[in-house]
């Protein structure tokens, strides 16, 4: 089952605009991560935010986390055509001495040149 749900499912914007996608999850977490996937290939880790953090930046990426609402958002500023990809949030689940990550359903972003 999916832990997270991304919103919107699909997003189309012009190059230079900002893109915002949201993630909601169900259970308490230790951290939340965002990944990017190009053309159905492997996922690339973008950024991790811990449960005691509210905001984190990495280059053109800004992530916020609201644990009271069990939600996170990913903002990509000044988008480029190369940002066209699917974006997934993932939350951790600790069981039997190891961590696994549960992924959401993804947001498909298309940046038009």
């Amino acid at each position: 089952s999916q832990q997270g749900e991304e919103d919107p499912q699909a997003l189309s914007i012009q190059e230079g605009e900002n893109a915002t996608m949201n993630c909601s999850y169900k259970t308490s977490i230790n951290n939340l991560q965002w990944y990017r996937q190009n053309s159905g290939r492997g996922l690339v880790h973008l950024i991790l935010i811990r449960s005691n953090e509210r905001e984190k930046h990495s280059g053109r990426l800004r992530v916020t986390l609201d644990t009271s609402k069990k939600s996170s958002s990913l903002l990509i500023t000044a988008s480029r055509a190369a940002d066209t990809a699917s974006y997934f949030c993932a939350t951790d689940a600790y069981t039997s001495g190891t961590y696994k990550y549960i992924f959401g359903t993804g947001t498909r972003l298309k940046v038009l040149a």
Partner: protein
Amino acid sequence: DAGVTQSPTHLIKTRGQQVTLRCSPKSGHDTVSWYQQALGQGPQFIFQYYEEEERQRGNFPDRFSGHQFPNYSSELNVNALLLGDSALYLCASSLRTFRGNYGYTFGSGTRLTVV
């Protein structure tokens, strides 16, 4: 420094057959997790291996089995293939002592098509 390597890249099998997918983790990583990703969906957790044992398992039938070798590489086996098993299979590696705080390194995946 090699990342996660998966083989083969693409595979076509017939219903009822068996398939083995392989994964070599990133150098220094000791934990391997396998995911199934259907078209247009998010990755679904299959199972995770550490110290050559299955540590966690998702909601997948026993037709899905795995193995981890002493060099930390791993195999995913699927028996009695169904059309619904067609998907991208992703391998991810991590270091257990990171306690989940540094995310996964993913391979490029194996695209399995069952006909």
